[in-house]
């Protein structure tokens, strides 16, 4: 476990989470959520949970982002709140 790398990843994680909640454009929001998923994946890989990191990279950062985009294309792109 490398403490400084952990701190950098966690700071980016919080930034990505806040941005993905804050943006009005849902497409940007889901992209930032993909970044969030990938940062979590890096954090898990760095802590030794490689299997979990692999799943997160495939599901959290990959497929779920695609599903969000597919849904946004069929609904509205702007968030109202």
């Amino acid at each position: 476990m490398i403490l400084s790398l952990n701190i950098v990843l966690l700071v980016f994680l919080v930034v990505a989470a806040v941005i993905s909640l804050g943006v009005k454009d849902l497409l940007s929001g889901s992209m930032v959520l993909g970044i969030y998923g990938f940062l979590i994946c890096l954090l898990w890989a760095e802590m030794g949970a490689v299997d979990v990191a692999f799943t997160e990279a495939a599901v959290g950062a990959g497929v779920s982002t695609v599903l969000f985009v597919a849904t946004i294309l069929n609904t509205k792109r702007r968030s109202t709140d």
Partner: protein
Amino acid sequence: MNAKVSATIAVIITGAVLLYGVADFPDFGDPTSPANAGVEGGAPSASLHFINESYKETKVPNLVTSVLADYRGYDTMFETVVIFAAGLAIFVILRNLRSDDPLPEPLPATEDRFIDGDHQRIIVGTTCRIAIPLVQIFALYVVAHGHHSPGGGFQGGVMLGASFILVALGGNLRDALARLGEDTFMRLASLGILIYAAFGLVPQFLGRNFLDYGVLEKIFLTDGPEMARSHSMLGVEVGVALTVMSIMFAIFANLSSRGEMRGGL
């Protein structure tokens, strides 16, 4: 605005409670913590047993796979069923089976939903065509090599499903459905769970517990129950991969075409 304020307060309180709880955790990777070493005078720790004995008992070097697919096989089986149920729920909510209905009104091509112009389509399409076979081969490696390296049925299945999603994204949904039709992927999703259940039921017929793979040495003709458990884990992973692959693609196809399975992205 009021809802936002109360939600923020709820989040802050929950976060404070969680941080308070984390303070009582044992240190990261502490070998003397109760979860790793067991409680004095109590039952021996399960994780110690997995760490020390799982390779001897199953001949699977990847501890995570042996716990997921063998020791905790019952959980994994119903995780797969949960994924299957999620796919079925999306199917039931979105799928429009009346094919004589006209296609839904195409959405207005405003600046708002302009993502990919035609001039970029050839670049995206060519990149996807190059990437898809590599993704699929790597996915098969991940499924087949899950015992020895990180990976397994879930990860490999998601990657296989993603490769078919990539066909739809790089070209169109019709091309993807021509390669993996709706009948095929719904059958494959059920088949995956049936494979898993068969690995549970066959040991029962041979007089052992559900998912007790060791007895399958009589069928696989391996020397000893350890290799039978290892081979059964591979079979189970293949079942999981089939279900996950089909359901991932089913969810995408239903979502992107609004349940019509025509048009779409």
